[in-house]
C-alpha cells in the first residue's frame, strides 16, 4: 500500500522523543552529510504496510543516548546498556512511524547492529529520511518501504 510519510513527521516524532527522554531537542540537519554511522538500530513493520525504520548514529551519540536514558555517566554504563537504550529509541520511533502509516500492522522487536547499515533493497525504496544534530553529532532516521525489504544489517 502506498504510504505518505513526510520528513516533518519524522522530525516531529524525534522532537517529542528527544524532549521527553534525552533532555534537549535536536535540530534538523541534512541527510548524508555526517560521518558514516557506527551504530544502526532498526525495527520492521509488517502488515498492511511493510517496511523498516532505521536510526543511524555515531558510537558517541549511542553512548550519550544510553547515559541520558539511564541518567548514568558513560563510565557507569553496564555492558548492553547502550544497545538497550538505542533499541528503545528506535522502538519508539518505529511505533510512532507505524501510527502514521496504513494499518493494521505489527512492529518487530528492535535490532541493534554495530557498523554501517544497509537494507536488503531489492524493490525497497526510501519513503522518508530525516537528519538531526544532537550534542554536535549527526543522527539519521530512514524509513524504507517494500514488500521485499528484509531488514537492516551491518
Amino acid at each position, binding site marked *: 500500500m502506498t504510504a505518505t510519510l513526510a520528513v516533518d513527521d519524522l522530525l516531529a516524532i524525534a522532537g*517529542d522523543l528527544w524532549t*521527553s*527522554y534525552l533532555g534537549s531537542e535536536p535540530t534538523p540537519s541534512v541527510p548524508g552529510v555526517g560521518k558514516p554511522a557506527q551504530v544502526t538500530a532498526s525495527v520492521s513493520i509488517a502488515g498492511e504496510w511493510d517496511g523498516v525504520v532505521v536510526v543511524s548514529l555515531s558510537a558517541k551519540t549511542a553512548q550519550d543516548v544510553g547515559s541520558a536514558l539511564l541518567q548514568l555517566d558513560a563510565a557507569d554504563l553496564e555492558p548492553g546498556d547502550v544497545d*538497550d*537504550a538505542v533499541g*528503545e529509541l528506535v522502538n519508539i520511533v*518505529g511505533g510512532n512511524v507505524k501510527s502514521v502509516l496504513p494499518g493494521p500492522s505489527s512492529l518487530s*522487536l528492535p535490532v541493534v547492529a554495530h557498523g554501517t547499515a544497509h537494507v536488503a533493497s531489492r524493490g525497497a525504496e526510501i519513503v522518508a529520511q530525516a537528519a538531526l544534530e544532537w550534542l554536535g553529532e549527526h543522527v539519521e532516521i530512514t524509513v524504507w518501504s517494500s514488500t521485499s525489504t528484509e531488514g537492516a544489517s551491518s
Partner: protein
Amino acid sequence: MRALVIDDSRAMRTILGRILVGQGFTVSEAGNGQEALDSLDALHAEGDTPVLCLVDWNMPVMDGLTFIKEVGKRDEYRNITLMMVTTESEHGNIVRALAAGAHEYVIKPFTADAIADKLALLGLVSAEVSA
C-alpha cells in the same frame, strides 16, 4: 505501595521506575510477561502484591497483552491496576488491550507528568503528589 514495571528495555524500566519512586511507590522490575508473572507470584507469596503494573506491549517470551490476559484469569490479582505503556497506538489494539483488562493506556513517548496524571485519575496517588 508496590508497583511492577514490565518492559524488555532496562532504559525504559529505569525511566518508569524513577517516575514511580517519585510518586511514592516501591518498584520491582520484570523484562517480559513471564518474568512478571513469576515476580507477581513471588511478591504475592510475601504478602506484597503490587497495586500497579506498567506493561509494555512488544516483549520477547510473553508480550504485554498476554500478560494482562493471564493476570485477569487469577482472582488473587483482581485488584491490580494494569496500565499499558507502549508505542502501540493503533486504535484497534488499544481497544483489544482495554477489553483484555488494561485499566489505562499510555503511548510512548510520554512525560513524567502524563504518567503522574494517569496515576491520579486512577486514584493511586493524590493530585497533590502527582503535581
